């Protein structure tokens, strides 16, 4: 397996408060990596470092052998909270089409091919029937699916999702993870979650992050690791699939 993202001794702090320290992690092609850890443990910060939205204070990150701002065009990113306002006058398909930027021609409108790709991405997340609804009418689950479709529309090699199921119900959560599992055939996937028990059924490796990387294991996460991670014993909730 080829390394696709290499994180080499990376530290980052927001105005002198360290957020992540000495992170070493190599993510290989075709992996489905779960990143878990407590709130403020640096999970979202690590993603932003990989995406080149933040620059490490120390250490180095490469994405597909390049610097993050060059390599990130091959990454599809699904943010935890949408960075746009819900009353913006735009419909679902036009949001998904934004994923085509950088892949399509630089001038004028979108091509028919772009529109086909956007509709296929909407079909994949099963919301193609509402393609022309404006985004202020969407439910939490529909919004999340739209964001995934937008990430898929750029035909990425790597898909990065930040708490993709934080604002939706359990049933939709299972659907989305089943979908991701399917995409894992030809994509490397990194998903951040606080729900340890749930994602362990889908991912093939887990990275536990609380400022430093405490473990990255393929085996079941033990109670001891969780205690180390959260600073207190946590009752694991068994999800039944």
């Amino acid at each position, binding site marked *: 397996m080829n390394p696709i993202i290499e994180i080499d001794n990376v530290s980052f702090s927001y105005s002198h408060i360290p957020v992540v320290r000495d992170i070493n992690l190599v993510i290989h092609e075709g992996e489905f990596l779960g990143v878990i850890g407590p709130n403020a443990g640096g999970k979202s910060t690590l993603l932003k470092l990989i*995406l080149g*939205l933040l620059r490490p204070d120390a250490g180095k990150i490469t994405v597909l052998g390049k610097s993050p701002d060059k390599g*990130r*065009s091959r*990454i599809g*990113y699904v*943010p935890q909270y*949408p*960075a*746009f306002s819900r009353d*913006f*006058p*735009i*419909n679902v398909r*036009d*949001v998904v*089409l*934004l*994923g085509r*930027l*950088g892949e*399509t021609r*630089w*001038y*004028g*409108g*979108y091509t028919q091919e772009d529109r086909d790709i956007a509709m296929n991405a909407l079909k994949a997340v099963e919301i193609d029937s509402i393609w022309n609804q*404006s985004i*202020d009418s969407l439910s939490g689950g529909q919004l999340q699916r739209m964001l995934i479709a*937008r990430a898929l529309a*750029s035909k990425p090699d790597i898909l990065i999702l930040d708490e993709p199921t934080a604002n939706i119900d359990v049933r939709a959560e299972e659907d989305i993870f089943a979908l991701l599992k399917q995409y894992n055939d030809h994509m490397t996937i990194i998903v951040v979650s606080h729900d340890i028990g749930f994602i362990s059924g889908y991912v093939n490796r887990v990275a536990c992050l609380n400022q430093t990387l405490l473990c990255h294991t393929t085996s079941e996460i033990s109670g001891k690791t969780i205690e180390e991670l959260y600073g207190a014993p946590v009752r694991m909730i068994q999800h039944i699939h």
Partner: protein
Amino acid sequence: MTEFLSALANYTFLQHALLACILSSIGCGIIGTYVVVKRIGFLAGGIAHTVLAGMGIAYFMEGSPLLGAVIAALFAAVFISFIKLRWKQQEDILVAAFWSVGMAIGILFISRTPGYSVDLMSFLFGNILLVSKSDLILMMMLDIITVGIVFLFYKQFMAAVFDEEFARLRGIRIEIYYTLLMCMVALTVVLLIQIVGLILVIALLIFPAACAAQFFHSIFKMMLAATAICLLATMSGLAIAYQPDLPAGATIIVTAGVFYAVAIASSRLLKQLQKKSVAN
């Protein structure tokens, strides 16, 4: 009304005024839409008031005030986008500084210019009846530039006003497109100053697009509707002002304000009716 129409057939200054309405509505509809959805009305206000500095200096040096306005507006646009991108914390203070210092510089230069100071009033409140042929040609050029740039970079502007973070990840250079957008706001402000003057320009930039936003949920439709509404507001304002000899700029703004009030009220009413019909 009939008097306005017969005057329109006879007097070139009214024909020019009408052409000015049409030309400025195009820029107003397109750029006003971006200003409304991106909520940068205050920044556009800062640009508009800085324009007086350029006009005053040009007037003092016996150059073309309109050209001075274009230069000052572009200068303000570049600086204000820099403020927005780099010094976001002090954005409101810095924009307010531009706003007032720009105006003050303009007033100082105008006061030192020998001659009749009535021109100050037409800078501040516009004088659509004095639009010359060369003004019209410049306005047309500004329209062509605006439409051309928006056509070329429609996707990039959409990404930049909708979701900056995602646009950046897709390789869009936000700084460039944001500055370009602010420059087009600047050019549109200069277009509209011809009609209503720089104090009232923000209202004309915002009202038509804000009306359109009540009824349309797509940027493209908003642009078309805002252009039509702007055209209707400026032309009917001009017609209303003509016979009683009211100041045209102020009449146009009041007309646009009434349109906006009607748009809000009718969109509320429409929503309530829809709710009722769903409930039944």
